[in-house]
């Protein structure tokens, strides 16, 4: 077990190093001078440009810049934003709780709806209702969140005036529409997965054994089919956490919410290198952390995983 744990952590670490190098290179190979981006259209002399480049260390070779950056990061210093000079870590820690709230709320919605609709859909297999639910869930997967979010705003905020479109981040009512917007795609995807997973279990032969032993249909469904079909579903839900966090980029922009996704987008638009690097690395850490935890839990649950 310890050997497995060590191996797993080593893999995670190499993923993180890979992400940091990749982000760093991407930023430096995007065409256009970051100093120009920093200054916007402002008229500045070439001497001043050179001075700023020197100050920001853009004149060093890229490997040197990367090493300087990583050395600082290992000392807990993610640098300061080029735009507003705030420490990057402060900005991330200030924005992350809002993203976490949104992601967790969306995860609850998508899990509940996904499992309920998916089970219902499996239960009515091969009826007209099955077809209706299938069409609805596939539509739900296909609808882009920026469009769905605007529809919700138009209906619930502008038309009915029930829920705020742009609540301040500390207003719990403001969480409802963004969370639904973020959840809808994943909920529908989960519903499809639950449906097929249950149907697959229903077709397995152990049911016949159970029936032969005199178990009722209800017992078979609850104790055997649903329990067994939960295994892939739990995996899916843990993965969804990460997908939802990625999806928050769009939702945070539509609803003008605080959050790390919007922070990253703005940083990319501004070519605010330290902030982009910081937010991307932070999201990568969360991603790797959740995956590692999921894997470790598997290893505890299922000894076969450790041996691979």
């Amino acid at each position, binding site marked *: 077990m310890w050997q497995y744990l060590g191996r797993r952590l080593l893999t995670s670490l190499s993923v993180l190093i890979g992400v940091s190098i990749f982000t760093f290179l991407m930023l430096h190979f995007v*065409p*256009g*001078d*970051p*100093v*120009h*981006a*920093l*200054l*916007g*259209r*402002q*008229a*500045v*002399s*070439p001497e001043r440009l050179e001075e700023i480049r020197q100050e920001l260390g853009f004149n060093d070779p890229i490997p040197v810049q990367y090493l300087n950056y990583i050395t600082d990061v290992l000392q807990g210093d993610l640098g300061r934003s*080029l*735009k*507003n*000079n*705030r420490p990057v870590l402060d*900005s991330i820690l200030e*924005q992350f709780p809002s993203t976490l*709230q949104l992601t*967790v709320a969306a*995860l*609850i919605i998508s*899990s509940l709806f996904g499992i309920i609709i998916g089970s219902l859909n499996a239960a009515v297999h091969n009826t007209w209702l099955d077809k209706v639910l299938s069409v609805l869930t596939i539509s739900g997967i296909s609808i882009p969140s920026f469009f769905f979010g*605007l529809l919700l*705003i*138009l209906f619930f*905020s*502008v038309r009915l*005036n029930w829920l*705020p*479109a*742009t*609540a*301040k981040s*500390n*207003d*719990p009512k403001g969480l409802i529409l963004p969370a639904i917007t973020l959840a809808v795609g994943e909920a529908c995807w989960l519903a499809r997965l639950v449906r097929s997973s249950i149907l697959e279990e229903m077709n397995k032969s152990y049911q016949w054994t159970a029936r032969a032993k005199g178990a009722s249909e209800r017992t078979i469904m609850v104790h055997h089919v649903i*329990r067994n079909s*939960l295994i892939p579903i*739990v995996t899916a*839900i*843990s993965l969804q956490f990460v997908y939802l966090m990625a999806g928050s980029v769009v939702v945070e*922009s*539509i*609803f*003008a*919410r*605080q959050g790390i996704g*919007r*922070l990253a987008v*703005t940083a990319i638009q501004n*070519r605010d290198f330290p902030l982009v690097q910081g937010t991307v690395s932070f999201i990568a850490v969360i991603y790797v952390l959740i995956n590692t935890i999921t894997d470790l*839990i598997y290893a*505890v*649950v299922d000894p076969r995983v450790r041996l691979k």
Partner: protein
Amino acid sequence: MKQKKILVGILVLAAVLASSVVAFAQSEGASITIGISVEPISLDPAGGLYIPEQFLIQQIFDPLIAADPELNLHPALATSWEVNDEGTEFTFTLRDDVTFHDGTKFTAEAVKVSFDRAAQGTTPAAAAPAILSDYIETEVVDDTTAIVKFATPHATFLQDLSRPWLFISSPAAIEEYGEDYGQNPIGSGPFILTEWAAQDHITVAKNPDYNWGPEFYTHTGPAVLDEITFRFLPEAATRLAAFQSGEAAIVQDPSYLETSQLATDPSVQVFTFAAPGMTSHQMINVEKAPTDDINVRKALIYAVDQETISQIAFYGLQPAAHNVISPTTWAFNQEANDLYRYDPEKAAALLEESGWVDSNGDGIREKDGVNLHIEYPALPAYEEAFMELLASYLQNAGFEVNITKLDDAGISEFGAANKHNILNMGWISRDPSVLSYVYDSANIDGGNQSSYTRFRSDRLDEILETAPQTIDEEARKALYEEAQAIIMENAIALPIHSYGSVYLADASVAGFRFDSEGFPYLYEISLAAE
């Protein structure tokens, strides 16, 4: 089984996190929410550059001299001022009854500290250092007298003082907050910053001691509103939704289509303002074929119908422009403005005169086997609304147009490499002196390298270099009128539109009035009883 427990565990954890959201009590009273499009980067006057900073800085800080909407100057923190004959030394007599939001007293020392910082700039993008070029020092004579000294004459300095970049900060606060001063600005203005939640909102509260507003304000004493919340709503659709659902009483820059539809709604007030300064225009490159030929350049201008572009792209809310300077700017030249109007036949005649004809019937004119080709690097952030329309007017006249969409940095590189035929430029400013930044030929290869027309005229250079130092207003005005004539006669600028500020306000908002740069005086705004 274990998986199930994990699932339950996740759900419980989630429920706890979700319920930990702090409940928010809506405070009643004279407070309003304003939806703005861009979050400020820093509210340090010495560090700001863009419009979002300007709007907020004006609420928190005071100028030495304030400009009314007609640009007449009025005493603010300075009660009187004198300029020496050379226009290099400015002596200010200051109020002695002003306190900053941190309780410290405003003195001449604050002027010195603020200008010394502004001359350096506290961020790379700061606008102040360019305004304070050749600044020597501020001499503190006594608590209420300060002398600002320059190495060269500064004809626009008194006007510049009324711009937010030269507003006065509390020296004690600068000392206290150091690098974080931009997030903790302390001035003496009508509103005090109380909260800044990044990517969410800024809240300012009324300064109860404020009693030193300039005389042209409609009332005296503290502001009418108790509290103003600025919400950062970058998406135009979200801004509009926030307005329609009543979450924001005022919104900035709504989308033009919706604004034109809402204009007929009696419960909605629409306020528009045409900004002074350079218009949004295409600078035409005289060093790259085919725009090295003046006939081709003139044909470009005649080929474009700005009135229709303004109607289609902006629903008329960004007015059509025909000059490099907008009509609301001091020293605007009407004759230069009247030189060109949409005339496709004239455009065709000029092109034919220079030998550009469509001999193979593909709709593109050619000469010696070369197509009449225009390279157009465009910045969608500014040009999205009209760039395709502009290209189609040029194509109708027989041009072949290649649009390359780039960001700011990409455009600067494209222009510096001399690959463009036309390139968009614009600059909101009260004074035509901004022309120097992009029309002085010293800025072609040297300087700021932003003279994308690459046009060289000794007379134009002389005007742009001497006018900012010309103290006599009539002489200065004549110089700038001549500059506009030279630019338009040589057809190096293709005007598109003037910049317009657009605000929506609901029926409860009273006392809405624009300042000289198109920002509402929030100090004067009140809420009518509904």
